[in-house]
């Protein structure tokens, strides 16, 4: 039976943070992408079987509010959430646009981050020097033509965008409702208006991240080139890069099973997750 997903609100030093909570045990905090938080993705109940999962909406997204002048400001607000609600230190996941605040939090408050998972993070957002080269990138990599409508966002707003974000077989617990889709579009428009720029200071400071870090990227990511993963692996001292073959941009939804397995093994085994511990015979089980 699935763990119930509960919608809650926290007041952290004057900031109003909406969040979803599910499960019990070791705390895992998930920083959402440009589309904000939704209860629909199947990875939430999957992770909640083992962990207490918190999915806060950052200030400006969904119903959350607080200081949003800079990326550092947002990270400070979220650090207070992690401390107050998460009881830090926690295992922190940043997906896509949630990668930048997750990295900032790991830089500014290493004491709150037990481990860090970055799923196709958007810190290097559209760096000209890292534009995908169709002749070198994995199959399918290229700049997708997603149009420029402000209504388009990090949610299933069109078939083309769905395919780019979630791939051919997205894993939803229940299909997102029309209201959820509309909210995602509003979130994405907000993100584009306020955060769609390179944070050069954060790029420089990634080298300060102390937490063991797992960088995940889909080889079929058409939004951000998979080759960017190499840059994070080089910059972050204790980092591992894993490519998920054939996976689209939004890994937690596009390939929920593989995402949950990798995150779980990384949290449980730490950097020893590189050791193959899967039994291949009855005798070794």
């Amino acid at each position: 039976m699935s763990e119930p997903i509960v919608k809650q609100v926290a007041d952290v030093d004057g900031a109003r943070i909406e969040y979803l909570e599910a499960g019990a045990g070791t705390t895992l905090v998930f920083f959402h992408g440009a589309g904000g938080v939704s209860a629909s993705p199947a990875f939430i109940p999957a992770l909640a079987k083992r962990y207490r999962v918190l999915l806060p909406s950052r200030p400006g997204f969904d119903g959350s509010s607080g200081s949003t002048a800079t990326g550092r400001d947002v990270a400070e607000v979220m650090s207070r959430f992690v401390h107050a609600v998460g009881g830090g230190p926690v295992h922190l996941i940043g997906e896509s646009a949630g990668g930048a605040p997750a990295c900032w939090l790991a830089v500014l408050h290493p004491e709150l981050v037990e481990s860090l998972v970055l799923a196709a993070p958007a810190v290097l957002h559209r760096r000209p020097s890292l534009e995908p080269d169709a002749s070198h990138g994995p199959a399918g990599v290229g700049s997708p033509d997603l149009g420029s409508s402000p209504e388009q966002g990090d949610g299933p707003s069109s078939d083309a965008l769905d395919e780019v974000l979630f791939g051919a077989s997205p894993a939803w617990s229940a299909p997102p409702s029309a209201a959820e889709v509309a909210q995602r579009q509003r979130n994405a428009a907000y993100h584009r208006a306020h955060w769609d720029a390179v944070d050069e200071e954060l790029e420089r400071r990634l080298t300060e991240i102390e937490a063991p870090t797992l960088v995940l990227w889909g080889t079929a990511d058409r939004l951000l080139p998979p080759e960017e993963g190499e840059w994070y692996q080089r910059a972050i001292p204790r980092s591992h890069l894993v490519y998920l073959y054939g996976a689209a941009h939004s890994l937690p939804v596009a390939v929920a099973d593989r995402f949950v397995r990798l995150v779980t093994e990384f949290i449980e085994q730490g950097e020893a997750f590189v050791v193959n511990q899967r039994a291949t015979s009855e005798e070794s089980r």
Partner: protein
Amino acid sequence: MKVSMFNAMPFGPTRERTTAWPVPNELFDPDQAIRAAAGCIEAVEMADELGFDWISCAEHHYSPISLDVNVSVLGAVLTQHVHRARVALLGALIPLSNPLRIAEEYALVDTLCGGRLVAGLLRGAPYEYLVYSVNPAESRSRFEEAWELIMTAWRCPRPFGWEGRHYQFRQVSIWPRPIQQPTPPLYVSGTSKDSGAFAARQRVGLGLAFTNRPLAAQAARFYRETAAELGWQPEPDQVLYQAPIYVGETDQEAQDAFRPAAEGMVGGGMSVGNRLVANAGFYGERDAETRTRYQDIGAEHSRSLEEQVAQGQVFCGGPEAVVDQLRRLGEEVGCGVVNLAFQWGVPQPLALRSIELFAKEVLPQVREL
């Protein structure tokens, strides 16, 4: 047109003729195998000295048709005997092996020959799936994932892990990397539409073997059309055609010498294996055309030498006749590389003479095609 000498390291005739597959290895003769290996090296050195552009080898199993079970092993040996030509591994059957092992070994061979490797990465004939007990229904998806993993291993400059459908690795950082960056020249076999489309998508060369001229022309046209739709144009060298060859002083002498080999080229047990695997789902629904092609080719192998020459399935004749056959091949298929199997069922002295005649009388004219 560039010319490659295909070197399968054939064992030669067994003491009892058999059409079974796998061929029982009680028919293996150690002394004959040693002579076969030496004969292979002798032919390779001669072809390199005589100006062939590539020396190639391929992977096959459980049969005296070829003793080369691992192109990386034989390729490494070739690098020590081939000093001028490219060393073409055409190639490892990547769904049947550890893709990272292949990535490492190919990079090592490229290192050993100073960056002269040509890298063929193949899916394999259906019967090969019986060798290491790999589910043939997964052939296509294993091939495509193994391909992408190998490309990433060659290109990615940082350690990475791989969480795939068929392959999982947590730390990859191969040494050596290929000398040729980002990759050596790449080829896949492309007689089916799926394979041709894959080659076009990946912008790599197309190898056409175990086929005939009309079918190859059709496959090459599809590949070029698909490439054009994707916004690029393959170079002539990116279409390769492979077939057995025998060159004699005269047409009659060549036909007399080659007829027993050419007309004895029936697939035997391999055809049975191909059928079993095809019925188990190797081709899939999209590959219905390929299934038909295999049936056609199987039929053609029992045709007369003259019919096979007419179809471009083998090349045979005096020098002028062979030049004409290759000219027609070039005109119809548009291949920039022809991969020729000289040691194909003929005694070693005749094979060497055929190589020498080809180099002196045919090669200069073929270069101009």
